[in-house]
């Protein structure tokens, strides 16, 4: 199995451990992720806030590169990059005038056959939970985890078309397949405040504080996510000390892959104590 892969800017910065763990677990699964050549930033919230056309054209350049690389469906780990690229795809597929404009600016011809998938979707639905379970060497027994999807994966559903927008299950099913216990809670899709962290830290502290305290109240010992910005906000704007994992890190722990020390060392809230306590360190 082989996919085109768009790492996004944060794979080499704020979400280092997401990238490291993704590559480690995909190696174990025997699935190739072929990084697309000379990709650019998706544009993130900044472009769609100020320049709609630019917010479509920047991801469209990456779509063009993935098309010509012919390494298979385009897989995106970061929820934010996934959302921006799906927005561009939505415009390319549903708005003919806009498609022509984007094609002219970026200099390519769009082929609607290229699939654009979130990494989580690939794990749960393309590789499949049976295959995942086969690779589990150390089940995450006793680990109570709150699965946090945030915004960008599931909304707007007409654009992302991933899971149930109000009560998504992909992560919960994956965690159960790894032997962990996903808790039932009602804040799995509530917004963390995103980039207001840099301008209105107090607002983000309130939003994150509520999400983390609800996870704790539901009995979770940690949370798991797939978004670099959510992970950073949840880790740095809470006071409860609840570890925040990327889902690929917990896959790596269950698969018992090498190099996990380095991932744990990148966390602002060290998760090692919790893992040790459960004999998972």
């Amino acid at each position: 199995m082989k996919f085109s892969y768009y790492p996004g800017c944060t794979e080499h910065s704020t979400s280092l451990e997401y990238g490291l763990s993704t590559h480690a677990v995909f190696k174990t699964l025997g699935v190739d992720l072929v990084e697309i050549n000379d990709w650019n930033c998706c544009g993130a919230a900044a472009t769609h806030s100020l320049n709609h056309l630019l917010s479509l054209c920047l991801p469209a350049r990456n779509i063009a590169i993935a098309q010509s690389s012919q390494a298979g469906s385009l897989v995106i780990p970061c929820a934010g990059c996934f959302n921006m690229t799906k927005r561009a795809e939505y415009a390319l597929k549903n708005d003919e005038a806009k498609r022509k404009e984007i094609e002219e600016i970026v200099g390519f011809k769009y082929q609607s056959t290229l699939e654009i998938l979130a990494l989580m979707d690939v794990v749960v639905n393309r590789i499949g939970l049976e295959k995942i379970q086969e690779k589990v060497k150390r089940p995450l027994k006793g680990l109570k985890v709150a699965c946090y999807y945030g915004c960008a994966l599931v909304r707007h559903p007409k654009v992302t078309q991933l899971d149930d927008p109000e009560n998504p299950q992909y992560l919960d099913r994956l965690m159960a397949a790894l032997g962990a216990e996903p808790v039932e809670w009602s804040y799995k899709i509530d917004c963390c405040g995103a980039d207001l962290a840099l301008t209105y830290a107090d607002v983000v502290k309130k939003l994150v504080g509520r999400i983390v305290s609800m996870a704790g109240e539901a009995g979770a010992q940690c949370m798991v996510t797939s978004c670099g910005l959510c992970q950073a906000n949840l880790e740095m704007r809470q006071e409860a000390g609840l570890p925040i994992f990327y889902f690929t890190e917990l896959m790596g722990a269950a698969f018992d892959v090498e190099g996990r020390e380095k991932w744990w060392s990148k966390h602002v809230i060290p998760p090692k104590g919790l893992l040790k306590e459960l004999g998972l360190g």
Partner: protein
Amino acid sequence: MTDTGTIDSSFLEDAKKRSGEDLDLCYQCLKCTAGCPTAPYMDIRPNNIIRMIQMGMKEEVLGSSAIWLCVSCETCGTRCPNKIDIGVLMDALREMAVEEGVKAKEKNIHLLHEAFIQSIRRGGRIHEATMLMDYKLRSKDFFTDLVPGMKLFLKGKIPLFPDFIKGKEEIKRIFEKCTKEK
């Protein structure tokens, strides 16, 4: 709500055209505002933004903090019974405000977006260190949030050197065309 602005009769049509959303369909059920994570901090709530657009209150809407405090989480658009994508509307309103030279009520949010976009323009990818420095210089807000920034830096998560792409000229061309053709 203030009552000082003049009524702009074309504002509703402009906002509908720019956003592609049918704002006439809103029947004020307030579902957008009820689910909005930042509504408690807005000067005008999302449902009132729509009502005020219908009433032509352009100055108030484009000059509001609300259009900048929206983080595009899309909870509103997902739940709207009339399928109005309010997140997309907010994007359109911000774009209109900037184009018309309306001073952003949330200056720093606007400046952060600008700093981010300029970072992409320079090298095709984000370089956090120079982007944040650029934002600090623009906003003159030097001391907020130094601790979280330092924590990430010490974890090796804010690289010193940028990772520029080879296709910088392509990016430059995309930027030029997207800015000119508006």
